[in-house]
């Protein structure tokens, strides 16, 4: 099933849903499409069959992603993707369960399911596309909207603090945590791949552009301009270690932030319980 | 008592306008400004509504305005008195909603196939590009034309309404667009 590097540019089409009309509903240049490409290329490389992959999402622009791809797809209620996914994974542990979620979906309304999925260390790969806003509803502030940023619900600048989703995931118990951006392509493939192969809960945060709302309201320019900014503001984990907190303000530390291959995975533990009790 | 449907007619005190075009042509902005111009020009009731959602992101776009001297019951258009079509797609889609002998205004720089002789054609987009240097104001130019053709509001009210909503620095462009639209329409107005 896997494809060679050479054919990389068109293998994506193998995974697009034949029945879905393209192009997507996303705005021109929306980073969601870039992540979608990276994801299917990784799946192809890893050689997963289409039937063994289940993609679960909530509600938001980001959460529309699974609908375009020819896997088992579950487009759920806002914020609940990880809870549904927990049912899918625990119900059918052999499946590769991937959650595609936005910063609002995962961290605002869905924050509780997020930390509990981390805590259980259930083998789900969660790709969180962080565009710092609620794109779908038109650019409101989200839990990752930076301080002072403008959104339609913070018209005078955001007075709230923002989450670092990776920090939260680590504190809650996730065993693979990494960050990338839509501009850092090979690295993005790498961390998605590592997340999929990791046995346990993995969070892959991808910094992405919603130029339509977040970009426009905060004068960040169009899609290419925002992509360029991500390049400028990304700091690798290695470099970041040498910088102090002040220097890191407004920067994105990218790379693998945490990996723990010792902690046991939830479904495996439960299987042991079954094996023991069924006797 | 049957045959009710044969006897009914749409109340004459309603004037129904639809501005239609593509997503980027500012039809919604145009309809809002139009309402405000009418609001400033007297005591009329006005209701504006628009297509919302996926339709609103790219693709076709429409906004309806209903005007009356009395209370407006049904808020959406029933049979259009005036249709502005800025693209071929929108003309094709909405022409059927225009009442017989309703006012049809067409951007003839973009629309080529027109199913009737009874229309006002102005090349809004071409004029905007050539005379003002920006196609963005083609919608405002169309409002100037509507002003001239219907007399529903004064040119001054329109200008005031546009300037109140338009970004700073665009005052001149917009004023000019209104003037051109108004003048072009007067040229072809049939009385």
């Amino acid at each position: 099933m896997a494809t060679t590097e050479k054919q990389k540019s068109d293998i994506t089409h193998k995974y697009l849903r034949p029945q879905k009309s393209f192009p997507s509903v996303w705005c021109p240049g929306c980073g969601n499409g870039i992540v979608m490409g990276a994801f299917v290329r990784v799946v192809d490389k890893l050689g997963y069959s289409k039937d063994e992959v289940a993609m679960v999402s909530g509600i938001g622009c980001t959460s529309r992603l699974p609908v375009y791809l020819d896997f088992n797809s579950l487009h759920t209620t806002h914020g609940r993707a990880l809870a549904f996914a927990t049912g899918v994974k625990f119900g059918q542990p052999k499946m590769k369960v991937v959650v595609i979620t936005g910063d609002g979906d995962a961290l605002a309304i869905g924050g509780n399911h997020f930390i509990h999925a981390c805590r259980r260390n259930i083998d789900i790969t969660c790709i969180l596309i962080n565009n710092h806003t609620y794109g779908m509803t038109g650019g409101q502030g989200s839990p990752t909207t930076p301080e002072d940023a403008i959104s339609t619900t913070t018209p005078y600048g955001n007075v709230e603090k923002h989450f670092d989703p990776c920090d939260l995931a680590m504190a809650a118990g996730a065993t693979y945590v990494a960050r990338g951006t839509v501009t850092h392509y090979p690295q993005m493939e790498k961390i998605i791949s590592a997340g999929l192969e990791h046995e346990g809960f993995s969070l892959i945060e991808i910094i992405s552009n919603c130029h339509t709302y977040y970009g426009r309201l905060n004068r960040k320019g169009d899609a290419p301009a925002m992509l360029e900014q991500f390049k400028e503001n990304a700091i690798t984990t290695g470099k970041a270690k040498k910088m102090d907190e002040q220097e890191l303000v407004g920067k994105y530390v990218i790379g693998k932030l945490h990996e723990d291959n010792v902690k046991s995975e939830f479904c495996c533990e439960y299987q042991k319980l079954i094996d023991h009790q069924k006797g | 008592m049957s045959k009710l449907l044969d006897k009914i007619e749409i109340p004459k005190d309603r004037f129904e306008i639809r501005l239609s075009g593509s997503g980027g042509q500012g039809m919604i902005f145009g309809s809002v400004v139009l309402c405000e111009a009418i609001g400033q020009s007297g005591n009329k009731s006005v209701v504006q509504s628009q297509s919302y959602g996926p339709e609103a992101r790219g693709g076709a776009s429409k906004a309806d305005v209903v005007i009356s001297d009395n209370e407006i019951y049904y808020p959406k258009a029933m049979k259009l008195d005036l249709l502005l079509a800025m693209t071929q797609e929108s003309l094709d889609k909405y022409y059927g909603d225009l009442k017989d002998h309703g006012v049809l205004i067409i951007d003839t720089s973009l629309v080529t196939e027109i199913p009737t002789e009874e229309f006002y054609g102005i090349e809004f987009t071409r004029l905007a590009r050539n005379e003002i240097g920006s196609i963005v104001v083609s919608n405002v130019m169309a409002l100037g034309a509507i002003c001239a053709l219907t007399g529903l509001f004064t040119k001054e009210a329109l200008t005031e309404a546009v300037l109140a909503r338009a970004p700073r620095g665009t005052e001149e462009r917009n004023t000019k667009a209104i003037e051109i639209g108004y003048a072009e329409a007067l040229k072809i107005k049939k009385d």
Partner: protein
Amino acid sequence: MANKKKKLLQGNGACVEGAIYAGMTFYAGYPITPSTEIAEGCAKILPKLGGRFIQMEDEIASIAAIIGASITGHKAFTGTSGPGYSLMSESLGYAYMTETPIVVVNVQRGGPSTGLPTKVGQADTMQARWGTHGDYNAIAIAPSTVGECLTETIRAFNLAERFRTPVTVLLDEVMGHMREIIELPEKGDHEVFDRVKPTAKPEDFEAFEMTDNLVSPMPSYGEGYRYNVTGLTHDVHGFSTNRTDETIMKLDKLYNKIEHFKDEIFKSRVELVDDADVIFISYGTVSRAALQAMQIARKAGAKVGSIQLYTIWPFDYEMIKRATKNCKKVIVAEMNMGQICHEVQKVLDPSIKLETVQRYDGEIITPMELLEKLEEVL
């Protein structure tokens, strides 16, 4: 009158204006189409007036926050749509039980579930009465124009404060997004009902005292009364109880404070029913189609009337009975698969035939559809 400030407003925006007029100073919410403009409007205006806006992490937190704020003395407000309204149901029940005044606008979209987020519906009507578990009594009202979005929101706050209870304002997508030019009311144009505060000394104070109108005066936290608020069934002091007599007293109070004073809550627009053969019954945006159809039909010689409900819950059965007594048929029109029509059925004289026009495809009912139904039944 002529000199009043006029403004072109969306229905959602008019709700904000109405809330501000009524004295709303606290908004907590979570964005959802097609209600988001209410939150956005409040975010913009409240700090300018010294009020407070907070975007919460979800709808559950939003209703919790406004209940908390109401208890500190604010007139508190939130806006949402079906999915958010469903999420609010548990804590909405808490507001019923604790008798905390709040106003919730539900701008209805197509359902069930995520449904049609950008399309119109009226299918949360029964939910507004029965959405949370247990017994209670509910107030829900429905405007039909942008101007009424403003005035009915004022009324919602007045009812919430007068009856110490949550009030739901049912809008729909079309109304929330439609724009009309309306006159902005000035001070004094509309009554504003402010919360009744206790006059008893703190040591004599009973938080849930039985009064003549069954509504207990409500102090704000920090005013010296230090009472207990709980969602458990509670006695007049606010302390939880398992006693059957106290339970009955509490539940009867919740029910009867509305039931016994429902005439203060009912509001409807009854047009030309006296000689009507057929009467439309409707609420919200649909009423505008009904009035339009009535107007057109009357001109064409048909004897048609219209009943528009502004107050949906409590349901004004008596008025329906009275207003329909001379007619032959009623047509209940709503944008759902049939909700209020069942309430009408309960009181309709068996000799009157109930017909319905129902639309649940995300589009609004047109006057033409009503006229076609009329032709069919006449």
